[in-house]
């Protein structure tokens, strides 16, 4: 009741918080005079791109910026008590008990070597005098309260043995074990499937209703829209705009907020650019080979694939899947993790042989061919993956990667010219040629991956979650680039994603996958406006939008 006796009802009150890193004199300011406040039972969302300083702000509130960081502020009050100048022991008293923290991806945010029960138990052991038996009871109660099925079984499992949604629940249970009045959730649903994301957001909303103040950190405005009462938009260490969620999303005053809203692909019609300013027009790459008249570019008929599990049982990854892709068109393949999307991609790429069914490329058989016979047509199919970093040789420079992709048929000088044209086509400066993938930003890497994919003039590109690892604003740029390339080069895309907004924006037709089968297919507009199958309806309802 302390908070009510306090003159204002602010649980957390921060004035002019700054965080800098590096040595004195040449300090780099990462958070610059940030002010924010939260009331009990309220959710404030801190929104911005990676590097905007939002996670550092959160860590500063927990006293966890590390030795190299210096924190200064006019005021950081929690429940009327100042958090400035606390000793290490006093901070430990705050952490977990007064403020809980939920991070992204519980696979690594919970100790993968310890049982989740032990991780939750730690919070109780550190802050209460409960006996081990009482603590165990409390751990089970907590798991139940976060909606964990079969808590007695789960308590003995480790993060790696649980699905993404379940381990995120366990992580939340460990953060709320002591019912802290403030919960900081740093990208709590990034990397989760839409329906799981919706469940986790619901759980956070439930906590909010019970009076917990939530500081939600996200790069995704659509996620924020679901539970935040107020939004603060952060850029370059500053809060550029702050206000009630409705007002910010409908009437943004700052151009950066506007750009973030525009970048959300859900609801933006197919073909319309997400980023307003245009960089260049890619024209210099030769158009792909024309296909046999009439036949679709890619035709998959009755594909089936089963795999053997480690225990010997069989598991059907892809079951009677048929679809086709036409030149210059996009087929969006949506589904949650484990639905068989990536197996379909591998079958189409000819990396895995189907048990049944056929893949036909430009009217000629593609699956069930010897690799030797396929090689001459390999250049017709390109691929772009979620994590380009792991698909590049880390020792190669961008120039080497692209020279390899151009192929050995060309002589040195024309290869160099070709590399320059590719870089230009994907909107990268030629200065990037000598850099290695590790030293590029996520967006730049994905542009290099796209340049590599279009280098041999493919007719079809398989895009497997190409923007899932990117911030919304970078994602928008990459989606625009893919769109433009498709228009100029007449490439067909098989666009695989778990993100419905992205698929809706990019696709002409959509196929929805569930447990290895296509449960619904049709023109993108229709499928998203009037979903037929219950599973599609569930997905569409769960997808966050503005």
């Amino acid at each position: 009741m302390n908070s009510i006796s306090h003159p204002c009802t602010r649980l957390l009150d921060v004035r002019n918080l700054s965080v800098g890193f590096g040595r004195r004199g040449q300090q780099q300011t990462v958070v610059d005079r940030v002010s924010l406040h939260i009331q009990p039972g309220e959710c404030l969302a801190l929104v911005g791109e990676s590097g905007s300083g939002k996670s550092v702000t959160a860590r500063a509130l927990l006293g966890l910026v590390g030795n190299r960081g210096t924190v200064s502020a006019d005021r950081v009050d929690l429940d009327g008590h100042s958090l400035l100048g606390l000793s290490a022991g006093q901070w430990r008293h705050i952490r977990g008990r007064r403020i809980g923290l939920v991070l992204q991806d519980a696979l690594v945010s919970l100790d993968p070597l310890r049982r989740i029960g032990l991780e939750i138990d730690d919070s109780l052991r550190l802050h209460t005098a409960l006996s081990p038996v009482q603590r165990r009871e409390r751990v089970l109660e907590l798991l139940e309260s976060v909606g964990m099925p079969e808590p007695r079984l789960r308590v003995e499992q480790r993060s790696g043995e649980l699905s993404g949604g379940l381990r995120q629940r366990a992580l939340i249970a460990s953060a709320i074990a002591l019912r802290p009045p403030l919960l900081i959730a740093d990208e709590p649903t990034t990397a989760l499937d839409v329906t799981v994301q919706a469940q986790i957001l619901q759980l956070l909303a439930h906590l909010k209703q019970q009076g917990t103040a939530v500081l939600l950190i996200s790069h995704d405005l659509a996620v924020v829209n679901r539970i935040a009462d107020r939004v603060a938009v952060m850029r370059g260490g500053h809060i550029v705009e702050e206000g009630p969620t409705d007002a910010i999303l409908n009437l943004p005053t700052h151009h950066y907020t506007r750009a973030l809203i525009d970048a959300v692909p859900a609801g933006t019609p197919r073909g319309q650019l997400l980023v307003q300013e245009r960089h260049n027009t890619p024209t210099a790459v030769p158009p792909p080979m024309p296909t046999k008249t009439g036949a679709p570019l890619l035709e998959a008929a009755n594909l089936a694939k089963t795999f053997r599990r480690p225990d010997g049982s069989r598991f059907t990854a892809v079951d009677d899947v048929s679809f086709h892709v036409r030149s210059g068109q996009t087929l969006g393949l949506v589904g949650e993790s484990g639905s068989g999307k990536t197996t379909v991609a591998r079958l189409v790429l000819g990396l895995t042989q189907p048990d049944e069914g056929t893949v036909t490329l430009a009217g000629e058989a593609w699956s069930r061919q010897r690799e030797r016979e396929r090689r001459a047509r390999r250049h017709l199919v390109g691929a772009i993956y979620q994590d380009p970093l792991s698909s590049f040789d880390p020792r190669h420079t961008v120039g080497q990667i692209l020279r390899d992709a151009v192929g050995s048929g060309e002589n040195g000088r024309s290869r160099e010219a070709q590399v320059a044209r590719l870089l230009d086509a994907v909107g990268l400066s030629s200065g990037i040629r000598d850099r290695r993938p590790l030293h590029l930003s996520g967006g730049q890497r994905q542009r290099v991956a796209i340049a590599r994919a279009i280098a041999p003039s493919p007719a079809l590109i398989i895009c497997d979650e190409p923007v899932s690892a990117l911030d919304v604003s970078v994602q928008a740029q990459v989606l625009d680039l893919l769109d433009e390339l498709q228009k100029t080069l007449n490439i067909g895309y098989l666009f695989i994603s778990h993100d419905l907004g992205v698929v809706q924006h990019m696709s002409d037709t959509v196929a929805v996958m569930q447990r290895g089968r296509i449960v619904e297919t049709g023109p993108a507009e229709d499928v998203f406006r009037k979903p037929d199958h219950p599973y599609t309806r569930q997905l569409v309802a769960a997808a966050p939008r503005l």
Partner: protein
Amino acid sequence: MRAARWVVSRIAGGAFVLWAVATLIFFALRMIPGDPAEAILGGPGSQASAEALAQVRRDYGLDQPVIVQYLTAMGRLVTGDLGTSYALKMGVADLIGQQLWNTLSLTVLALVVAWGLALALAVWASRGGGLGTRVGSAMEVVAAAVPHFWLAAILILLFSSTLGWLPPISTGGPLGLILPVVTLAVPLAGFLGQVMRESLIDALEAPFALSARARGETENGVRWRHAIRHAALPAISLSGWAFGSLLSGAVVVETVFARPGLGRTLLNAVTIRDIPVVTGVALVSALAFILVTIATDAIDRIADPRLATS
């Protein structure tokens, strides 16, 4: 059930490796120039008569075709018969049995001490921030690079000749064990320490460590409850290999400290071409190496349950 299947498959694999080692040694020894019968009778200098050589060839089965000799040797091995030493005219199994304990106690102790030193070094370096890391890594590189014979000489010079605290040769008591153990342990500790320090620092900066700190865990709690286990994993995996390197290091160390053991037995046997003893020591070392590797893999599976379930 899964664990039982794992143990059985590992033992079968170990038996196969042992057979491969025995076969390789058998044929490799046939390639050494020189007449084995001569070696049995005391080497080329002994001027043995033709009759004596023929007698020896008959006694040792050296006149039989190679395949018969091979099968006989393998048959003997299965029953645990390692043959008779040419020089000492006693059973190789008995000879090794006398020395085995000396060498095992030396190498196992060295492994334990190396682990302790490496852990201390890694934890100390991870605490000291940037300076600790630099000093720690410099110490590790120096330790890992020091050759055994040089370190042994320095230790004798310092602790025996100058300070007079410890005996320069092994006397059989526990005091005599200290310098040989330290000589073997220090280079290995440097090596293990490098691996542990890096993974310890990684683990201390991992997201789960941040989660633990945000729960109110102390730095020591984060280190000992979470990070140390992650740091130990690669070092556990390396320990099987490390034990093998200790066995070969024992040859040098036992010679320098005049300590009875398998290493010295092996060195003597090689010098006088006592082939059954060389074969026996090699096989016993291979067996020890296989057993230790299985043991470290088992510990690895306990320390990292992800291995057992994947």
